[in-house]
């Protein structure tokens, strides 16, 4: 897009001019997909913007947006932008107390909310939010007896009257917008301290949208399902920025519970989901296959073997033997095609996942049945746009190449630094935080540690603050090591040590379900977790896993030093009740190191056995002791060139 289409409202009006009858927004309402064309969307936004203006919304003000993905909420964001205001989408599932912080921090006067549930929460927060004066709701259900709130229809009606009385107003306001105006304020999740409002300009989000659309060749004929929280930067990029940039169609599901059905009905061409969604889908498929008749199961497993062998290679356009090619074509007809259809992924050209580590089996499964699943890397501060995996160059453990227009640099400590047009303008009212995260050269400090592999792909390994150094200077990224180990279904939890030491050692928790099942199939009797964990057979099983990880590490010179030399299987499961894990099941590294100091000493002092007694808290609140003599096992390590030859 050329010319002065450098703000979202101007882009929207351009679509209304160029493709007035092209579908822009769909929503399933009362069982039927309703469509709004670009012309209709522009008209709705115009009425809204005029309504807000008539009620006193002015340039630079903030408009809170709270609710599930509804067309009107997306339009409200555009309406605020038309007036030079800033939409502030908020997480709709947060309790009223959390609303309060954001509403106050952003000095919200106007809020557009979805339904009664959200209105109740906003009204609960209102007494503590002195600025909040105007509340509009989308869904009138249950709203009859509320006072001091206005319906969406009423707001648009006011707007249409205002528009008739001031005909030039709307166009003048849109013309007044500048590309470096702030277009949206997104709050960081606040896992580290209070949430911060990240201010992004039109220019930043349009650059990110343009880069992404160009990279994956997205155009007006694409279609996506908008179902992830509107307050999340990813949704803002896909469902607003790229939507208004490329002019494709966004589809809003009927409700949170119907997403899978809606996905199938819409058959999007472009899809985003966090790893857990892909995992749930796969689990459902597998469960249904288990229930299928024997011939169907046989066909499924036969062809999934073929897909595993060559599906991903075919997707990447790499050479594949003719026999496999034929097998895959047949599988396409019998298994992969119908399966993609059931998943609602028949039309998908590009699917992305991000946000957490995705398991290798999971990733390979989707790619092998012909779904172009890729990973990306970014954050709220970078419009979710830093690295993308190119078609034909997808690697499981990297996040891809720096995206067009983005510079990525690795700092001395391993931290990933990025620079480009998509960087945040500032944190709202937090000049200290802004100064801290953007350095003199304009690089943003992501807080993530990573490195480039030999193909120039960025590999994110850990949070920068967790990364340490081995005594020989090699990098030590505990989460990276632990995640690698934890991908084995037999291993539930792992804690790696090595900062300031000569080598890496680890504690391992077995997965009682998976290993228990394994033991039963072998006729191995055990009485409980502690007993099972101490079995020599189990140690052997875990050793194999650890050695596989070591071989993988050895093949990559950057992490060759991270190979696990010695490990032990803990006598009890790490548990949030014993303060060893957080409630979200993250290891509390410092606490564990202190509590099990004797075991760490044993790992590094070369002892073969160590006695330990630990106090545990049972679920009913009583406490007891668990004692065991733990065996410390050695794992084979590899030198990098041996591994390379093997690989």
């Amino acid at each position, binding site marked *: 897009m050329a010319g002065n289409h450098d703000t979202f409202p101007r882009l929207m009006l351009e679509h209304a001019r160029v493709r007035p009858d092209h579908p822009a927004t769909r929503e399933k*309402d*009362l*069982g039927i997909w309703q469509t709004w064309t670009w012309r209709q969307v522009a008209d709705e936004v115009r009425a809204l913007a005029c309504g807000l203006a008539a009620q006193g919304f002015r340039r630079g003000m903030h408009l809170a947006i709270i609710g599930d993905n509804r067309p009107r909420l997306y339009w409200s964001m555009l309406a605020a932008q038309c007036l030079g205001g800033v939409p502030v989408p908020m997480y709709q599932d947060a309790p009223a107390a959390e609303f309060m912080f954001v509403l106050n921090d952003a000095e919200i006067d106007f809020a557009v909310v979805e339904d009664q549930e959200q209105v109740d929460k906003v009204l609960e927060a209102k007494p503590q939010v002195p600025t909040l004066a105007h509340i509009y709701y989308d869904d009138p259900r249950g709203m009859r007896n509320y006072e001091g709130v206005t319906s969406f229809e009423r707001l648009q009606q006011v707007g249409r009257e205002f528009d008739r009385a001031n005909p030039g107003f709307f166009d003048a306001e849109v013309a007044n917008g500048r590309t470096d105006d702030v277009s949206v304020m997104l709050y960081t999740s606040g896992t580290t301290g209070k949430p911060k409002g990240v201010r992004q300009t039109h220019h930043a989000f349009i650059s990110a949208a343009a880069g992404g659309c160009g990279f994956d060749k997205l155009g007006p004929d694409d279609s996506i399902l908008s179902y992830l929280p509107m307050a999340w930067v990813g949704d803002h990029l896909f469902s607003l920025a790229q939507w208004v940039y490329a002019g494709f169609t966004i589809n809003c599901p009927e*409700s949170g*519970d119907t997403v899978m*059905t809606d996905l199938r009905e819409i058959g999007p061409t472009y899809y985003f989901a966090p790893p857990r969604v892909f995992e749930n889908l796969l689990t459902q498929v597998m469960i249904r296959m288990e229930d299928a008749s024997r011939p169907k199961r046989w066909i499924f497993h036969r062809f999934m073997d073929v897909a595993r062998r060559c599906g991903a290679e075919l997707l990447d356009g790499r050479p594949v033997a003719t026999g496999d090619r034929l097998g895959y074509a047949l599988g396409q007809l019998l298994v992969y095609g119908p399966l993609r259809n059931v998943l609602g992924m028949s039309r998908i050209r590009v699917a992305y996942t991000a946000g957490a580590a995705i398991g290798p089996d999971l990733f390979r499964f989707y790619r092998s049945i012909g779904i172009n699943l890729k990973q990306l890397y970014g954050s709220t501060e970078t419009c979710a746009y830093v690295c993308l995996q190119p078609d034909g160059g997808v690697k499981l453990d990297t996040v891809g190449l720096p995206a067009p227009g983005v510079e990525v640099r690795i700092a001395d400590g391993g931290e990933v630094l990025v620079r480009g047009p998509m960087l945040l303008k500032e944190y709202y009212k937090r000049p200290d935080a802004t100064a801290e995260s953007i350095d003199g050269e304009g690089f943003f400090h992501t807080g993530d540690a990573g490195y480039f592999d030999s193909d120039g792909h960025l590999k994110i390994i850990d949070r920068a603050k967790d990364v340490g150094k081995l005594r020989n200077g090699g990098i030590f990224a505990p989460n990276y090591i632990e995640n690698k180990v934890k991908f084995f279904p037999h291993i539930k939890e792992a804690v790696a040590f090595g900062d300031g030491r000569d080598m890496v050692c680890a504690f391992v928790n077995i997965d009682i379900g998976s290993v228990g099942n394994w033991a039963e199939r072998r006729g191995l009797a055990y009485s409980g977790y502690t007993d099972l964990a101490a079995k020599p057979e189990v140690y052997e099983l875990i050793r194999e896993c650890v050695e596989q990880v070591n071989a993988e590490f050895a093949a990559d010179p950057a992490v060759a030093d991270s190979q696990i030399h010695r490990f032990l299987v803990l006598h009890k499961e790490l548990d949030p009740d014993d303060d060893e894990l957080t409630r979200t099941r993250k290891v509390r590294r410092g606490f564990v190191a202190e509590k099990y100091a004797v075991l760490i000493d044993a790992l590094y002092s070369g002892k073969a056995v160590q006695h330990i007694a630990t106090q545990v808290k049972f679920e009913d609140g009583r406490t007891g002791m668990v004692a065991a003599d733990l065996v410390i096992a050695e794992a084979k390590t590899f030198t990098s060139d041996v591994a390379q030859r093997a690989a």
Partner: protein
Amino acid sequence: MSAESERRIGDVILALENISLAFGGVKALSDVSFDVREHEIRAIIGPNGAGKSSMLNVINGVYHPQLGRITFRGTQRKQMVPHEAARQGIARTFQNIALFKGMTVLDNIMTGRNLRMKATIVEQAIHFGRAKREELENRAKVEEIIDFLQIQHIRKTPVGRLPYGLMKRVELARALAAEPSLLLLDEPMAGMNVEEKQDMCRFILDVNEQYGTTMVLIEHDMGVVMDISDRVVVLDYGRKIGDGTPDEVRANKAVIDAYLGVAH
């Protein structure tokens, strides 16, 4: 069933006077009188075997009392059969769910619209003209109810595969599809867990508020009854022993004795 109807308790729409019902020598109801006002939620409570379900069956014409007068919307009722009750705007749900297990949720709710379809079976079979138009109109109404009761996600699921709480909700949806002026609920919350009960209470109140539907409900859970009803009738061994607001009933000595027992 207009969306604008206010929730305002109006005049008596159903009056039961001196109802007595006996099956051979067993007296299920003796000399029970009470009335139901428009837009109210009226509860019938009582220990097991008190005659609650019999009372409901009398109201919708399944049982015919030997004595007594029933006046519904100003007309005194003669012998009546259930489908006539349905025609007059009385719908009900059952204590033991009575849905078509093999049919989808949507189809089950559509059956609630049956009385409103005028097309003949032949027209419906070829799905043409009047039949098609009616189907579309009725489907729109059903979708409104599906949205109202938040069961969009199970629209196409066979009822037999649903958990109990959702089946109950589907049954309520089917009763609502008939756009009843009087809705009879036979233990709508039996066998539900606390969360399902809360949901159901919310829906009953919402229906009453949104559509102004008058309801008569039987319920064992005292907390529920006291929270959502406007007035309560208490039966014991087929006799009425109390009638009034939840607070009045709670303070009624005969009711306390019936529920807690008395030392004889």
